[in-house]
Structure formats: C-alpha cells, structure tokens
C-alpha cells in the first residue's frame, strides 16, 4: 500500500525537478503581482506536455493512466512550493469525474482535451460559507440550472463547469460550459492569490454527468488530492523551518538548540509522518478501488488540515519577526493553508463525517 513503484518514483523525481526549478515560491510572488488569473498559462502548457493533465485519463483518451498515487505525488510536489495551477481542479477532479461518470460521448469529447491541457475544469459544489454537499439547493428543472455556487476553486478560469445540483430531490452532477448563457461568473481575489469564483446560474442549460453515486466519488477524490497537496505544503513548511532553526542565532545559540523548540519540532515531525501515511493510504485506496475510500478521504483531509494548520502557525512563530513580513515565505504558506483547510470540508466537518461513517 505504501511502497512506490519505480514508475511512480520517476514521476515524483521529475515533478520535483520541474517544480523546484520553474515554480519556486518566487513564481507564486510573480503570479500574485502580474497574473490576475492566478497562474501562468505557459507553465500550465508545460505541465500538460509533461503528461500531468493525463495522469488519470485512460491511454485511449490520450492519458497515461498512472493512477491516483501518481497524481498525488505530483500534487504533493506542487504543494511544496505552493505552485499555482488548475491541476487539482482539472487533472484530478475534472478528469476523474468524467472518466468515472461520463458517457462514451462525454469521455470522447472532454478527456482528450483535458489530457492535452486545452481545457480547464472546475467543480462547483458549495452554496454557502461552508462545505455542505448534503444541503445542496441549486436546482435543475427541464434541463436548466438555477441558483448560486460560492467559492468555486478555479471557477474564474474554467472552460467547463461540473455543477452539483438537485433534480427531482436527488443531487447529481451536471456539465455546463463556462461561457453558456445564464452563467455569471464573479472572480474573487483570494487569500492565496489563486483566485476563485462565485457563480450564478439563471436557467443555464445543463447536461447530466453520471448518477447520484458520482457526487461522493468525485468529492472524495477532490479531498484526497487536496490532502496530497497539503501534505507537500506542510512538509516543505516544516523543512524550511527546521533549516531556519539550524541557522538563526539568539542569545549566542542556534535557536534550534533550545529544548522547547526542539520538542515542538519533534512533535511536528510525528504529525507529518502520521499524515503522510493517511494520504498515501487514501491515494492507494482509490487506485485499488477499496471500500473504505470515504473513511480514508475524511481521515486524510482532516489530518492534513490539522497538521498544516499547526505547521503553518509554527512556521511563522519560529521565524519570529521575519516570519511576519510579506517578503518572507511563511505568510504565503499560512495563506494557502487556510484556503486548503476550508475547501471540500474543514477538519471539523470531516471529524463529524468520520464519526457518522463509524455509526456514532
């Protein structure tokens, strides 16, 4: 379950090399200043050329079918430098939703475009301030969508929207081109500089995608993939902080030689190792199509959220004053952390879900 194949090791190495070279945190700063879309289309094209957009797409549709473990490794590496791109929305959420739930025609139409990096997809789920898929109100009548979606990740740059909506009382997914009539997209300037969108639908034409069971399947994939990205963020935040502890001096001593900081660092290390196991287990559960995916998805998302929350806070604190400056990296990790913690359900949401899944 936890041992990587040689193919996966190679994928990780190449992802790390690309991200470290082309998308260090300086890249996020550049995007923040100069790219209102929240990412760089030239680099996005390079990601597609590396095959990342096709990792979850069958070979017959132009992908490599390297599976969720492979996708997770790439997202983790992107997380390390906070590399901004619509990879999660498109290559993980969009591709898996269509591959799992699409008709032959839908697959033929969309998957090759996703694999080629020609199409950006976004999943529109939440309708209030909080993740609550069980309370979706947005309605489809006579094939037309009406209602409001909030904080759609990458919704401001999407070409195709996957929209969860209620039809005849049952929640299902629907496909809506972003430029369709009756779709109004309000771009949000967000804490993590990636952007998002509030989207209003007023009689927009919607095409069904899969059955009711697809909703949770797609959400759990979104959660697990985001947890992998968060694991990368937390790992890097921790490593950067550890290095700082080994170089910054106060009172004539490296601050990393103070036992109180040593113990806090050691505890973070334990949290990170535990979180890594949860994320890897959840990713391989997807590849093995096991029956504990829901439980592992909540586990991975909640633990990644809590670990990232802790580590991002400690990153600022252990950097001291410098950690509070916009010029240093801790703030960037902290901001992305809070966004990722909230998306697809907070730790609190997933504790509740985990308890419900365990019947208590």
């Amino acid at each position, binding site marked *: 379950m936890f041992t990587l194949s040689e193919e996966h090791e190679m994928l990780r190495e190449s992802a790390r090399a690309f991200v470290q070279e082309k998308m260090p945190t300086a890249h996020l700063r550049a995007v923040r200043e100069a790219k209102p879309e929240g990412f760089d289309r030239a680099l996005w094209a390079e990601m597609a050329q590396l095959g990342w957009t096709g990792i979850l797409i069958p070979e017959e549709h132009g992908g490599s079918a390297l599976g969720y473990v492979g996708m997770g490794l790439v997202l983790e590496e992107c997380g390390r430098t906070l590399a901004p791109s619509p990879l999660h929305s498109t290559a993980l959420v969009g591709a898996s939703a269509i591959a799992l739930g699409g008709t032959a025609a839908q697959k033929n139409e969309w998957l090759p475009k996703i694999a080629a990096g020609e199409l950006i997809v976004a999943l529109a789920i939440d309708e209030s*301030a909080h993740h609550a898929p069980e309370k979706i109100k947005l309605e489809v009548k006579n094939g037309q969508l009406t209602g409001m979606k909030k904080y759609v990740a990458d919704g401001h740059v999407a070409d195709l929207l996957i929209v969860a909506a209620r039809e005849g009382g049952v929640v299902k997914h629907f496909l809506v081109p972003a430029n369709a009539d009756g779709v109004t997209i309000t771009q949000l*300037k967000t804490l993590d500089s990636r952007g998002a969108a509030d989207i209003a639908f007023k009689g927009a034409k919607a095409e069904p995608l899969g059955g009711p069971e697809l909703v949770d399947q797609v959400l759990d994939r979104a959660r697990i993939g985001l947890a992998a990205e968060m694991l990368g963020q937390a790992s890097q935040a921790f490593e950067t902080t550890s290095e700082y502890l080994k170089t910054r001096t*106060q*009172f004539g001593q490296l601050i990393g030689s103070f036992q109180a900081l040593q113990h806090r660092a050691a505890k973070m290390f334990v949290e990170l190792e535990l979180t890594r196991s949860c994320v890897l287990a959840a990713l391989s559960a997807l590849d093995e199509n096991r029956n504990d995916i829901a439980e592992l998805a909540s586990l991975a998302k909640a633990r990644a959220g809590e670990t990232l929350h802790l580590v991002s806070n400690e990153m*600022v604190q252990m950097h*001291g004053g410098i950690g*509070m400056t916009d010029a240093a990296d801790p703030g960037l990790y902290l901001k992305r952390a809070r966004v990722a913690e909230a998306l697809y359900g907070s730790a609190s949401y997933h504790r*509740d879900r985990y308890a419900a899944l365990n019947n208590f």
Partner: protein
Amino acid sequence: MADGRGPETSQELEAFRNETRAWLEANCPPLMRTPMGEDDAVWGGRNWKPKHPEQKQWLDAMASRGWTAPTWPKAYGGGGLTPQENLILQDELRRIKARPALMSFGIWMFGPVLLEFGNEEQKKKYLPQIVRGEIRWCQGYSEPGAGSDLAGLQTKCEDKGDHYLINGQKVWTSYANEADWIFCLVRTDTTVKHEGISFILFDMTSPGVETRPIKLISGASPFCETFFTDVKVPKENLVGKLNGGWEIAKRLLMYERTSISAGGFGGGAGALPIEEIAKHYVGVEDGKLEDRDLRARIAAHKMYDKAFGLTVRRAQEMAKAGDNVSHMASMFKVAAATMNQEKTELIVEAMGNRALGWSGEGFTKGEILAPRAMLRAKGNSIEGGTTEVNLNVLAKRVLGLRDHQ
C-alpha cells in the same frame, strides 16, 4: 462590600464620580461616543491632521484636565488621580462608550519610565507634550540580529565630547515613519553585553535618520526598518546613567507587555462577538450553532477570554491593594497573544470560504478584514517579547526554576 469595591468607596469617591460624569457629559462630543472605524484612532503628533474637528476638541478637553495620563503628577501635565479615581474615570468613559482621546506609546511606555528614571528637566520637557498629544513617540528596540535576544543589540552610540553620534539599524519600529521622536536603546560599550546599553532620546527629523515601512503578511505596514547614519544627539538626551539603559529597557518592556495585554490586540470596538458571526455564517439548529464541534471550541475560547478578563481585574485590585503584580506582566502577554490568535482563527473558521478573500468584489468589508486580523494576530506572540521569552521569564523569575549549571 456589597458592590465588591472595598471599603474605600467613600463619599469623596462618589462625589468624584458624579463630577466626572457631569464633566464628560458636557465635554465629550457625541461623535466621540460612536464606534471607531479602522483609521479613526488619534495618535497626535506634529503632523497630525484631525479627520473630524471633534477629535481635536475631545483631545484638548481631556488633556486640559491631564486625563490622557490620569495618574501622572499634575506637575508634569498629568491628571494626578489616585488609582481609585482612575478606575472611576475609566468606568465612566466606558459607560458613555467614549473613544480613547489619544493613543500614545508616550503614555503607555515611555512616560512611566521617564517618571522613574528621568531627571527633572527631562520630565518637565517631555511629559506635558505627551499628555497634550503634541509629540508622537516611537520605540527603537529590536534590531535584525537582536529580537528575542534584545540585549544583543549593536546600534553604536559614540561619545563625541559635546554630543553623541549614533550609527546602526533598528527594525520593528512601530509607526517610525509617522513619529516625531524616538526613545532608543543603543550600545555605548562593546566589551560587555547588558552593562553596555544606554537609553537615549532624539528627534526623528535629525539628519541621518531614515525609515522604510515593512509590509506585513496581513497587508498592513505598521512597522519600519529605521536606519541611523551619523545622527548627532545632544548629551542631555541620555536618560539615566551611561551604560545603565538595560534596567530602563526591562522596566519599559514590562509596561509594554501590560499595555498590550490590557488593551488587547485589536478586535476592539464594533467587532461582533464570535458566536454572532458564527450564527450568521454557520447557522443555528435548536438554538445551538449547527457545527457542534465549532460551538464547543467557541465556548471554550469565550470561557478563556472571560477568565482572562477576570484575571486582569484581579491584578488591578491587587495592585490597588499594594500587592506587587509585576510578575503577572509576562503571564498576561502570553495569555493575551494566545487568546487573540484563537479568536481570530475561530472567526475565520466560522466564516468559512467568506474569510478567504483578500480584496475586491464578492466579499463584505468585515469578510475582508477577518483573515487580515488573523494574519496580523500571528505577530502577537512575537512582538513585545515572544511567547517563548515570556515563558522563560515566568519559569525563572516567578517559578524560580534555574538554567543549566
């Protein structure tokens, strides 16, 4: 003891209360009784331009009685109030929801140490200006290599016979770019550590002073890097003894911690209670917040907050009764930082994706401010003595635990 205030609630104090209430009624302009906005705080100083004439009117009225610094001696422009009278004044100000007439590092930090360590001439010169809000002060303490280890500071101050010459760099100087004068720690002896520090004052318009704002992760820039290149300072600007600055510095830090903790870290007037924010964004079921996990954590936080408030009040009563409560400064600093961080995080969590905006369309003003307040609060456990340093202080000075021998 029925009102819990103790036997000193004499007729004289009741008279003082009545008189104070009447005076405030007559002198506090109605606008000054409304909640403050973001940039309504009055810091005074040479370059201050009041946003509203009422701000100046209110400051002048309070300053005329010395009530911007109520317990300072009248001889230096203060109010000359006893601690009991000051409690009544503060009660009455709260009662009419009066805005602070003046925010001032001079009143909170510099004034108290000058009263203790300054000479008569210095007190006569600087304190009345502070009371009247004419001169705005900033604090030259931290340096790039001297944060928690403040005594490691390197800014050099040389005796040039008829003046001192200062060269070096400070960082985290709050509002240095808007301040008129600075109280500053400098190194006057490089052969020893704590015993080579002096406490000195100078005008920020002196040639050779340069300030550069630091942008914070919250987007604001309340702090500066401050550079001194051959700044000439008159010799009478030294406070206390040459190389005797560390004692003054420590005392001032205590006042700083106390003022930070007592004042809280923002989220001041006008901010809604967390539970009201949560009710709005999370929803209510059977009269309870729908997210019960969050509800329990909000309750725990509010209880901690209440316990903190009660402890501040206890310390005030103890101080009034003549007990030494200086050991509590570090405790308040640690607890206040924890609390403000907890609070701002809970608000962000309660607001969900509505607290993930940075600017622009789609979010209310409060929604934009929430994550910035959370980000800003991360500094609370760093500024004015890190939580780590304050825990060290508690362990050693209060609990009597020793260092490795």
